[in-house]
């Protein structure tokens, strides 16, 4: 194991392990009641015993997150392409996009719950938070092509479509992927926030609903288990999108340069 590997993997693993041991030890030593703070071992065993309920909820939350992210990708890329074609369109629509982004999703959720069925409302909330970083980044990326290359394309009489496919789209890819990594995390947060806002009104059964429900029932170990699953889901989404970004950019982008030594 090299020094870099040690610092990169072993050190965080050791601190995490020590933290968990300390947690377990303190809870046992002071006999903290499980409805205040369950020990890590109890959280894990709850996760296993309640797996049927929790995994179903995880699947609900994940499918909302992924659907929202998918719609956000299609919508934002489509709108960014439209923006790239015409300044006028960009000027006309951008204020709406900004307004949607800066208004906190928790504040919009109750309104959406009036207009829409809870399931759709949750999906729309997750979509709204995931949408803007993708739109902003892709719009920026599409207008960031090297101006000398734009000149070169013009000199060789490239058509609009050629310029778009061979120059603007590839130039925008790193920007889009940066936006995707942000939006992946945000979609999950949006889904959770909307589920909590829906609360008992929603007949949803996602992880956030399990947390609210466990809170009412003082089933704190299950609450922690649901929290753990949300964290793991968030980390997994982030890792997958980072891997996707690395795979797509590995041959050419400066952000991937450090990886080849």
């Amino acid at each position: 194991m090299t020094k870099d590997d040690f610092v990169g993997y072993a050190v965080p693993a050791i601190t995490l392990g020590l933290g968990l041991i300390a947690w377990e030890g303190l809870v046992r030593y002071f006999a903290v009641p499980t409805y205040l703070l369950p020990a890590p071992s109890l959280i894990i065993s709850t996760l296993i015993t309640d797996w049927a309920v929790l995994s179903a909820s995880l699947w609900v939350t994940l499918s909302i997150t992924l659907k929202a992210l998918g719609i956000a990708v299609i919508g934002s890329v489509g709108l960014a392409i439209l923006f790239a074609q015409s300044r006028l369109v960009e000027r006309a629509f951008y204020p709406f996009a900004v307004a949607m982004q800066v208004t906190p999703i928790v504040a919009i959720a109750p309104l959406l719950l009036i207009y829409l069925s809870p399931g759709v409302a949750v999906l729309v909330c997750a979509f709204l938070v995931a949408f803007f970083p993708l739109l902003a980044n892709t719009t920026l990326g599409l207008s960031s092509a090297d101006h000398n290359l734009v000149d070169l394309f013009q000199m060789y009489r490239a058509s609009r479509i050629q310029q778009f496919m061979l120059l603007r789209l590839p130039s925008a890819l790193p920007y889009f992927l940066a936006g995707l990594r942000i939006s992946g995390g945000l979609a999950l947060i949006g889904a959770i926030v909307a589920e909590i806002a829906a609360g008992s009104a929603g007949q949803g059964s996602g992880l956030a609903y399990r947390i609210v429900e466990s809170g009412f029932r003082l089933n704190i170990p299950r609450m922690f288990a649901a929290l753990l699953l949300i964290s793991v889901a968030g980390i997994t989404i982030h890792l997958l999108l980072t891997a996707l970004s690395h795979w797509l950019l590995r041959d050419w982008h400066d952000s991937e340069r450090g990886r080849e030594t």
Partner: protein
Amino acid sequence: MNKIATLTTKAAAIPVTAPPLVTLRGVHKVFANQVTALEGLDLDVRAGEFLSLLGPSGCGKSTVLRLLAGLTGPTRGEIVWLANCPELGFVFQEPTLTPWSDVFTNVWLPLRLAGVSKEKARQRVEEALEQVGLAGFAKAYPRQLSGGMKMRVSIARALVTRPTVLLMDEPFAALDEITRLKLNDDLAALRSSLGATVVFVTHSVFESVYLSDRIVVMAARPGRAVAEIVVESPTQSRQEGFRLCKAYADTCVQTSEALHVAMGDRPPKILKSGAA
């Protein structure tokens, strides 16, 4: 309108009587921000010559190239080509490659834009890579290459359409001195084998004298041509040893003086006595 002060009129390799390939007459260029880039520029580019445009920054030399490439139009004046739509090649100061595609795809680009398939372009691309000494690098990505090699790819891309006119905008300015000398040598050799007309923008006196048949010295604010220097030794027969010749040194001194005048300075004394 500014007159070109001809400093030397010695016989050049390219006869002065050859019809100009392209003529710029009284060309004015004013940018949108009201900056005058060129004022009343008269310039002939003769078929087959290696012409350098030398001058300080802001003298409009890059604008001349952009005008020749058709990337922008003159505000006033005219640009007349002898032949209709000559095949142009353009080399920028930066390599200006698409980092997401390999060397082959980068060089293929001009043909690809003209609708030539990858298979049909293969021979031409490989030929162009060979010309710049990069045979075997087709699958490399730009970031794996050094600055000099990237510039070679950029030159190969300009050559792949077999241009009759090669426009080069300070192509070696960002390179280190040693790489630059090597690329100068290679460009000189390449150029005599190609026989293309080259318009070369530079702010290096030595580079312009080494490579050119003719140097047009430009002054800034407003951009205009102020002097013309014909380099005596024919470029076709130049060897690496040309840099050691007295003719080379003399022309460098002469060109430096013209550049100093163009910049509004008096030619430095020490330079004059050193040359004598």
